[in-house]
């Protein structure tokens, strides 16, 4: 899938993706020659069709997580199906401390995908040298990574 700016005959680059939470998706593409932007809007069925292939329109903002497709889409997943592996302490360049408020926020994520979501947020903080995970950091990460659904 490619988007072409007909006026400039120039390929448009992916700029932004938004998931408003109603099953629809908006993906913004921009022409780097003239700056024109277009938004591709998909209905819930189209969004699901793409999602069922385990791919994201516009490309991935975070690497695909192990069994992401199953975890994100299985209805009736077992709450305690996954248990986190604790890596040895020296393997962690930056220790990310989760504040009670962040833990509370994470607790609202269905437990079937909670481990995967926690890892995404922790990796986000670690890569940026953030030592404390707060709801504010989670909000920023959600926006930066396009994780509106998480």
């Amino acid at each position, binding site marked *: *899938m*490619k988007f072409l700016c*007909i006026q400039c005959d120039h390929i448009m680059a992916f700029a932004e993706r938004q998931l408003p939470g109603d099953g629809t998706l908006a993906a913004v593409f921009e022409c780097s020659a003239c700056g024109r932007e277009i938004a591709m809007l998909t209905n819930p*069925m189209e969004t699901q*069709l793409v999602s*069922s*292939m*385990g*791919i994201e329109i516009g490309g991935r903002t975070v690497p695909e997580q192990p069994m992401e497709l199953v975890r994100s889409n299985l209805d009736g997943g077992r709450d305690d199906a*996954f248990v986190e592996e604790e890596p040895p302490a020296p393997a962690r360049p930056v220790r990310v401390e989760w504040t009670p408020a962040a833990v509370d926020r994470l607790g609202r994520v269905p437990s079937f995908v909670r481990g995967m979501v926690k890892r995404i947020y922790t990796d986000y903080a670690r890569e940026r040298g953030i030592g404390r995970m707060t709801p504010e950091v989670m909000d920023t990460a959600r926006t930066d990574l396009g994780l509106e659904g998480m």
Partner: protein
Amino acid sequence: MRKIRTYHEVESQTGDLLVDQIRDQRRRLDGRLAGIRNVVAVGSGKGGVGKSLVAANLAAALAAEGRTVGALDADLNGPSLARMLGAAGQRLVDGAEGVVPAPAACGVRVMSMELLQNDADAPLRWRAPSGDGFLWQSSIETGAVREFLSDVAWGGLDFLLMDLPPGTDKMERVFQLLPGLETLLLVTTPSEMSRRVVARAARLAREQGIPTVGLVANMTEYVCPCCGHSDPLFPGDGVARLAAATGLEIWGRIPFDPRLGEASDRGAPAVVASEDSPSARAFRALARRIAEPREVGEEPAR
């Protein structure tokens, strides 16, 4: 009419963002498969012939002989391998290299939808915003099998046994995930109905170019546990006719044994639970048949 450049005429420095993701999935799958010496698919095309029972007992028999074995339940809608191998209810560790498969008591590493569902008796359902599941369901289920292959930290395996779903359409999708699949066991029973359906699966295997395909005849006879006398369970021998019609060799004949089902229900494969039974002996012979040609000069995987 104005001329708009075609897809192939437009070059993108960032590539195709969708196609590239599909290629990444393929690379991940290939990387994981590189650590597995032999993938053996167990299928039939028909339900109810005992595919899962054969896959579970074969996995346990290979593990009992010192091989490192994984068992992947690709029958997402009717999973049973975890229960049969005694791994039901286990939790999966989210490891650095992927999801760690559940270790069964018999030493087999197991991945099955059974381990992920909250209610073992509930039909498999996917979250969906609308009722148009027919449009995307096969895509997501093929993706789930792909993730079972690529995102599970199988480690080095001598054998990965795959329990295929019934239906030649689903078998074909799994084959497309495994272009290098070398061995397929087609499980059948001596019944005429089974013969016809399995013949279709045999043709599919030939069309897909799978080099080694063997027939496993299940429920061939009933062996009296008291005197050892055996009687056929079905009139005629549909398996021999199937073999003659397809040119496939019969690799094993598994006698009917009520203890097989009973042992499976409590998570103890018959090759472990009743190792001297005729069916256990038949499974061990089948395991040797599969393993021996491949292991000359090979150290077991770790």
